[in-house]
């Protein structure tokens, strides 16, 4: 069955909340019913039909043709199926998703994958700040699943990460993996200042180091870790190129010793 398709008519005049466009919400609805779903965020009412041409299809396989930076909350809370966006999206893409596959063929804004619990979020472009991180007032960020960014990430990528795997093939901004509770964050390019800032547990793999390391990490020397092979094998399922960075001996920095200090940063030879 062909995917349920939303083709962008023209760029929206306001930010849109596209969180209703997920499989569990659209199952059993007719095209007319879907077109009446409100997605506006201002006093001017906007429905799906005003923005998209909707083509009937399988709600477990949703395709959004065209994207703009004003598409907020794409795939929020999705639990199954696939959602594919042919373009850019705004804030909170894939936030709180618990299953399924969300693919963004463009850039994503801040808080992409915020608090996600499962499933796979694949972003082909760059992402804004606080990738996978919690919103204000929340205590825990991403707690499961795989978050794959092929471009660069903004500041505090993986903030309060608790479980799951974040892979950033490009560079990351300052404070990558800040306040990490556990989980794994792998960055292929250079990270900004102070990666792992106040992390308690978890693993940060830095393929090309960082612009500045915190003095509150203790150098444990270089090691041939069996666990690194397991990590590399796992990463290779998502990105073979990123995996090759971590196959050799890795230098282990333990920290953040200004916090719990049971975390680690792993670095290949420069």
């Amino acid at each position, binding site marked *: 069955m062909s995917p349920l398709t939303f083709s962008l008519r023209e760029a929206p005049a306001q930010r849109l909340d596209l969180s209703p466009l997920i499989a569990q919400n659209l199952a059993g609805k007719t095209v007319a019913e879907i077109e009446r779903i409100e997605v506006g965020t201002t006093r001017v009412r906007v429905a799906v039909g005003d923005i998209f041409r909707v083509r009937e299809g399988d709600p477990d396989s949703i395709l959004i043709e065209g994207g703009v930076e004003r598409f907020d909350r794409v795939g929020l809370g999705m639990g199954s199926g696939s959602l594919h966006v042919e373009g850019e999206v705004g804030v909170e893409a894939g936030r709180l998703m618990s299953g399924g596959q969300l693919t963004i063929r463009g850039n994503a804004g801040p808080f992409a994958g915020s608090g996600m619990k499962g499933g796979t979020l694949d972003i082909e472009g760059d992402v804004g700040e606080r990738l996978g991180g919690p919103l204000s007032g929340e205590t825990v960020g991403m707690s499961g699943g795989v978050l794959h960014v092929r471009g660069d990430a903004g500041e505090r990528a993986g903030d309060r990460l608790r*479980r799951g*795997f974040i892979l950033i093939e490009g560079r990351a901004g300052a404070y990558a993996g800040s306040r990490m509770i*556990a989980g*794994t964050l792998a960055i292929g390019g250079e990270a900004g200042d102070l990666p792992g800032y106040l992390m308690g*547990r978890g*693993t940060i793999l830095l393929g090309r180091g960082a612009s500045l390391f915190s003095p509150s990490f203790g150098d444990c020397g270089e*090691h*041939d*870790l*069996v*666990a690194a*092979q*397991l*990590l590399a*094998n*796992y990463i290779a399922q998502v990105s073979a190129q990123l995996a090759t960075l971590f196959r050799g001996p890795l230098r282990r920095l333990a920290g953040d010793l200004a916090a719990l200090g*049971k975390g*680690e940063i792993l670095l290949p030879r420069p």
Partner: protein
Amino acid sequence: MPGLTVNGIAIDDTFAEAFDMRATAIVITAPTERWAVQAATTMTGFATSVIACGCEASVESVLSPQQTPDGRPGVRVLMFAVSTTELQKQLQNRVGQCVLTSPGSACYAGLDSGEDKLKLGDAIRFFGDGWQIAKRLGARRYWRVPVMDGEFVCESITYLTKKAVGGGNLIIMGESSTKTLDATEVAVKAMHGVADVIMPFPGGIARSGSKVGSKYKGASASTNDLYCPTLKGAVDSALSPEIASVLEIVIDGLTSDAVAEAMRAGLAAIIELGPQRGALRVGAGNYGGKLGRHHYHLKDLLR
């Protein structure tokens, strides 16, 4: 026990009687095959019979680096016991004392599914004294325990099967100890080609087959005098005059089919070797069919 004669070897018209058991499997890896085998050999020492060892365990197969989770040489070990509790205890003690301690070792689940779970790294992690690190990769979870040569990596759990069978057997009889041993070794080698089985006795072979009970109080098993060649003239022996040596292969398998397949492979190898170089007769041990649910009739196992 008259039966068939195949290639000059008498095959008794009898059956091996085997029992339901609980079993698990683990994969041990190391920097070299030698050290993977060493860890597994140490772990499965004193694991020949549940009668006094708590479990029956042995190396099922040697694995190439391409077959292991961490890309290093490894071995797959199978372990059998009569209860889940005993299997958990034996697994924990043996991995803790023999695998954790072995240089460069790592330990993974050797079964991907089963009726129940057994703690593997979840039981060993406390050795890390708080420095242990859990790492979840997809559906699998590993513990990294700091040790003096680096880290001991151990998967958190392995699985248990309740479909396992213990006690499949062949009794190999020959005119000399050398020929009997040759035939039995050939059979064990053939059985090693079958997946999901182990032969837990030394080198896969038991020379002291037992019967249930004893004249002495407190002994649950004693020598199988009917098959002892030195007692041929003193008891109602099961041996004809030309038999001078008897050896037994005991087979435990993760499934009944695996046990049958191993017995079939062993029997075929003995028959192929022939009576001139090997055995004159092959039998099997049973308890009249009343104790074990699984019966493997030798005549059904001839290819």
